Each structure stands twice: as structure tokens, then as C-alpha cells.
């Protein structure tokens, strides 16, 4: 241990370490347009299903699959051109948060759609998915911030 390193110098070095790691972690950002795009694709797909027309279902399904893959690839590959975050930064809580997010959107969409169908409302799947899509757009940015908080908490030098 160097005797000549002052505590304030050590503190400054720790601050630099934290800021550099924060700089990288902040790049793991899911842009707002992604949530809107996925939500729009989900509603479009449901509307195609509700139409009960084979051609509309075929086109809707194709657009949904291509759209989701394209949007996801753009977000993932866009970030991976520069760097790839450490895999263990997210941890089990992060994985559970993502799974919980998906489960919540489904838990809102499906019962709403079935309830609307039982009530005889037209386009029940579209309306049910619309509710889930709105939830996704509103809570997607929150999920991003939560995941970043988890990663910031797990970076080096964060445990004191």
C-alpha cells in the first residue's frame, strides 16, 4: 500500500472509476421509440387476428415478426458496435425484472381480451393488447432505468 497516497486522492480515483463505469452502463439504454414500435406492432398483429381474414392475418403476422426482429436487432446491434456490457452486471434480479415485465404485460392483456370477448365486445384481442401496449409504453422506460440502477449497484467499487 503506498504510504504517500492521500485519502482525498484515493477518493478522487474511486470517483473516476465510478463515473467511467456509469458512462458505459448508461449506454445500455433501450430507446423510447423501441417501446412504441413494439406496442404498435402488437396492436397491428392483434387487429389482423381480429379481422379473421387469412390474407390480413398472414400480412399482419409477417409484419409483426419482421418488425420485432428488425427493431430488436437495431437496438442490440447498435449498442454492440461499441461495446458489450459485462454479462454478470444484470444478475438474477435483472433477469427477473425483465421476465416480470413481460408477465405483467401478458397478465393485463390476456384477461382484458377474454373479458371483452365474453362481454361480446367487437375486436377483443385488439383492445386487450392495446391496454397491454399502453402499459408497455408507459413502463418500458421505467424498466430501462431499473436495469441501469441494478447494473450501477453491481459495478466495481460500489460496495462500501
Amino acid at each position, binding site marked *: *500500500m*503506498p504510504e504517500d*497516497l492521500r*485519502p*482525498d486522492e*484515493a*477518493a*478522487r*480515483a*474511486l*470517483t*473516476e*472509476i*465510478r463515473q*467511467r*463505469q456509469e*458512462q*458505459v*452502463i448508461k449506454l445500455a439504454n433501450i430507446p423510447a421509440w423501441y417501446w412504441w414500435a413494439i406496442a404498435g406492432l402488437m396492436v397491428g398483429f392483434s387487429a389482423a387476428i381480429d379481422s379473421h381474414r387469412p390474407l390480413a392475418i398472414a400480412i399482419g403476422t409477417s409484419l409483426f415478426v419482421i418488425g420485432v426482429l428488425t427493431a430488436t436487432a437495431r437496438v442490440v446491434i447498435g449498442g454492440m*458496435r*461499441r*461495446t*458489450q*456490457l*459485462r*454479462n454478470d*452486471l444484470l444478475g438474477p434480479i435483472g433477469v427477473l425484472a425483465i421476465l416480470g415485465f413481460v408477465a405483467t404485460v401478458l397478465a393485463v392483456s390476456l384477461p382484458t381480451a377474454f373479458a371483452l370477448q365474453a362481454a361480446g365486445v367487437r375486436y377483443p384481442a385488439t383492445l386487450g393488447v392495446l391496454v397491454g401496449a399502453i402499459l408497455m409504453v408507459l413502463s418500458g422506460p421505467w424498466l430501462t432505468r431499473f436495469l441501469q440502477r441494478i*447494473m450501477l449497484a453491481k*459495478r*466495481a*467499487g460500489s460496495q*462500501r
Partner: protein
Amino acid sequence: MIEPRFDELIHAPTRLSIVSLLAATEWADFKFIRDSVGLSDSALSKQLTTLEDAGYVEIRKSFIGKRPRTSARLNSVGRVAFERHVAALQEIVARAGASVRPQ
């Protein structure tokens, strides 16, 4: 429990920035490190070579299409050295008590 060990090589300001950045990643693109830390190509090459010679960093050169691409990653030896260095810094700050805290 990580054994604190101050590392002179890592502690140099520019290298501390580079290693801190790499410690949060699996790997990072050369240009990304250069722009993040604010170094010239030659200055970053020199620092990465120093870290590579110390056995802390691996430098990979590949091609994306026809474009060459250089990336760097902190290997397991580098990660342990960095964690120990961070622990050593924390120990110095802790010994000084609450009067000095990282921001």
C-alpha cells in the same frame, strides 16, 4: 473477500480511466475507448500495449466486412488486479473516516 492491493500500473490516471471502462464490459471497441477517455489513437495504443504487456488486457483485431476493427477486453488477471486496486483505494478512504468520501 477481495484482498486489497494497490496497483501502480492501473493507478496512472489515463490507465485508471481505461481499465475502469473495460471493467464494466466484456469487450470494448478501440474507437469507443478512445472517444470515451479522450485520447489520440497513438496515446491509446501505447496505454493498451502497456496493459497488454502487464497481462491485464487482450487486444483483438478482426474485420467487419473489409473494415479492420480493434477491440480490447480486460482478462481475468486484469479484473482481479482492478478489483484489488479498488479495494485498496476503498481501504485508504475508509481509514480516513467519513471526512473523505468519493462523490
